[in-house]
């Protein structure tokens, strides 16, 4: 079964609103990464948070990690139409090198 599961599966918001996506995982991790996938394209790495970190920022992105609950959230502030994409969390399991396990993704639509 998949290591990470995103919630919600789909999200539709208006431009300017904030978008929050959640990810839960099952086993101990070294780090957790978030990726974006535009339609018909490959994945693009957004941000990485290590297991000893609780929060990280990058531009309009804010990621939190709660290892006690085995969950993470991705917040996109002041969303834009160009943020429309699928967002995936991926976990690097302990002792698994660079092996990533992906969740099912959240499909975000930002309406202009």
């Amino acid at each position, binding site marked *: 079964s*998949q290591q990470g599961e995103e919630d919600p599966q789909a999200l539709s918001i208006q431009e300017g609103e904030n978008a929050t996506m959640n990810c839960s995982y099952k086993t101990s991790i*070294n*780090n957790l*990464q978030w*990726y974006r996938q535009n339609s*018909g*394209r*490959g*994945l*693009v*790495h957004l941000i*990485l948070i*290590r297991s000893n970190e609780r929060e990280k920022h990058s531009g309009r992105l804010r990621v939190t990690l709660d290892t006690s609950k085995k969950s993470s959230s991705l917040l996109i502030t002041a969303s834009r139409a160009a943020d429309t994409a*699928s967002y*995936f969390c991926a976990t*690097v399991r302990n002792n*698994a*090198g*660079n*092996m*990533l*396990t*992906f*969740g*099912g*993704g959240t*499909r975000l639509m930002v309406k202009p």
Partner: protein
Amino acid sequence: EADIYQTPRYLVIGTGKKITLECSQTMGHDKMYWYQQDPGMELHLIHYSYGVNSTEKGDLSSESTVSRIRTEHFPLTLESARPSHTSQYLCASSGYSGTGDQPQHFGDGTRLSIL
């Protein structure tokens, strides 16, 4: 954008044909990966490589095979394509890290359709 390239982008082909999906990267990364992704779904790791002459099977069983003769090149081959192989195939690479904190860089994928 990352320097990792996949060809072809789209391929529609008949059952029983031999197919090779190409993947090349110019970043000198040792680690390379192949994922299979159905539309709107999660990615499943089918093959990976730690470097030249290293290939391993991933979490999802696949009838495809891979080779790694050169660092920059990681082709995937299907000897006899079947409709069940219809999917999107994504190639990725990453630099070395003992703690797994190097991001993976993805190509734009090959969308394969077997008739």
